[in-house]
């Protein structure tokens, strides 16, 4: 077990003393996190502990108000950047509950993510969609309107494939996904985060939220954190942390971590 301080020389994402309010309520408090270039972290935590809030804040969604602290991305302080500026710098996110937009097709979203807004849904989009078993008909549906849980996840991954960010956030990519597609999603997440590269060549980083931990059958993150009440309660080796959570629950895992069970 290591101290909950920020390591020196965070290359990709650094969050320092972050306090976030939503609708006047403090959800995240004095939060610290560092993700190095090439690293993938996984964040566990019970429902309502603030995981989605953290990702939304990193992405700069205005309803999530930073009261204190700052977020640095590739050495740039982005705390006050609008979302699209952060995206330009290389951030991308798979949303847990993305909104429905009437009249805007999934294919249109893919074109937008490809940086070619308003263009036809052509072969390049169709080819990309094939990777996710998404049909042309599905590309022509209004985005998220009547999508099943699993379809939402695949649609999000497809948009990220088009966007090709260097820092990827996945908010519960495994919830509601059927067994046939979970492996596919895992493979594509690995591809997106450049996990097939050898360690020294990994340029992309990721932060994955998972409640169930299913996705960890397919992805091997470098570090795991447990979030409780808006703070990181403990950190450690993903397999170890996951094992303790499965067996003992979140609170107990934190205690065990305290007793150095999760230590690297």
């Amino acid at each position, binding site marked *: 077990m290591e101290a909950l301080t920020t390591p020196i020389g965070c290359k990709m994402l650094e969050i320092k003393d972050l306090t976030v309010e939503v609708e006047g309520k403090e959800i995240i408090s004095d939060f610290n996190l560092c993700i190095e270039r090439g690293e993938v972290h996984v964040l566990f935590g019970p429902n309502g502990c603030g995981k989605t809030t953290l990702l939304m804040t990193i992405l700069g969604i205005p309803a999530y108000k930073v009261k204190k602290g700052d977020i640095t991305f590739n050495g740039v302080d982005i705390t006050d950047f609008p979302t699209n500026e952060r995206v330009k710098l290389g951030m991308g996110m798979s949303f847990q509950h993305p909104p429905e*937009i009437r*009249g805007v097709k999934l294919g249109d979203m893919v074109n*937008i993510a490809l*940086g070619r807004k308003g263009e036809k849904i052509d072969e390049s989009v169709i080819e990309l969609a094939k990777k996710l078993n998404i049909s042309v008909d599905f590309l022509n549906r209004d985005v998220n309107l009547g999508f099943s849980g699993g379809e939402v996840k695949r649609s999000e991954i497809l948009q990220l494939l088009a*966007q090709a960010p260097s820092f990827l956030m996945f908010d519960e990519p495994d919830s509601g996904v059927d067994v046939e597609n979970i492996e596919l999603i895992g493979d594509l997440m690995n591809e997106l985060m450049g996990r097939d590269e050898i360690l020294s060549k990994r340029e992309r980083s990721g932060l994955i939220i998972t409640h169930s931990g299913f996705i960890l059958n397919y992805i091997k993150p470098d570090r795991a954190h447990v979030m409780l009440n808006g703070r990181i309660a403990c950190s450690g080796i993903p397999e170890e942390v996951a094992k303790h959570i499965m067996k003992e629950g979140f609170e107990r895992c934190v205690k065990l971590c305290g007793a150095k069970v999760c230590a690297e």
Partner: protein
Amino acid sequence: MNEEIIERAQRAKVKKALLGEDVDIEYYTTETNEHEALTSLGEISEEYKQNLLDAGIDPSEKDRSGSFLQRDRSVIFSRAKYPGLELMSTTDAIKKYDWLKEYLWKAIPVDMDKYTAEVELDQTHGYFIRSEAGSKVTMPVQSCLFITSDKIRQNVHNIVIAEENSELHLITGCSVSHTVDSALHLGVSEFYVKKGAKITFTMVHNWGGGIEVRPRSAVVIEDDGVYISNYILMTPVKSLQMFPTTYCVGRNARATSQSIVYATNDAKIDMGSRAVLQGEGSRAEIISRVIATDNAKVIARGDVFGEAADAKGHIECRGLMLSDTATIDSIPELKATRRDLELSHEAAVGKIAEEEIQYLMARGLSEDEATSVIIRGFLNVDITGLPDALAKETKKMFDMSLEKVM
């Protein structure tokens, strides 16, 4: 017969319309120069060409089965290029065909209000379009009602007839020259869809901020007939009130009406569609998308009256508010007079959801770009039932109109 009609019109001369602000007809003049006829639509002056294009009219006449252009109170061009299609000024048609009296004022009562009365008492042309029995005119006919003289009133009476098992696609553009500050357009349109026939009617209104518009339209659909109307209004208008009625009188008659309205400035718009389902198994669908910004006031109506067995009607009315000083008043109405039918409606009015903007920004768009994508999506109604080329054309018109407002 004719006397009786004139007499009824005379009596209705001061009869105010049930809906819409009252227009002072006499404020607008009937005095205007006659304009010289053209030998091809392409001869229209450069100055006016853009006005035509803006209203979806192609001056090259390419891919059109016929073209009609009325400037102010003169028909300056009329040509049908396709066998089985007739196209001329209604005034000429009345002279030519005695039987036309079976159609004039049969779908709309001449004494409906002072506007219908005015059109009867001082009619200035309008178009007569007819597809002969069995002829499928898949290439669209284009007609344009164009105002270029200030302060005039244009009183057109249009008659469109699709004879049995024929097919007719009509693009109508209404446009006004930028030199015109004010004008009144009164348009009576009567559509007759005979047994097994189909009419699609795509209308682009491209008025100006000083124009008052009072169309009066009705459609009669016989057995297995199909009528599809697409209406686009994206440019300013002073005031517009219309409530076209479609009578599905025949068995399995089908009517679809789609309207896209982007109301700006101080526009006062009261519009909607009414469908009366009188034929067994007849169907109607009324779809509207209304955006209101600035100080625009929009009333969006939709009525479906079910009067026959197995009739089905649906209204889908969505409004998007872009300003706190605009209003949208959505009024769907369903009326059933028997048990064995099905009528439904959905209506929603709201603002752009912040979440949707954020989602698009998370894919790289700026806030303004995101807003425009959402607006475009909101107005994007997939038009079904048009021939492919016309569907593409309509999409193009829609995109062009949208480009201008955004």
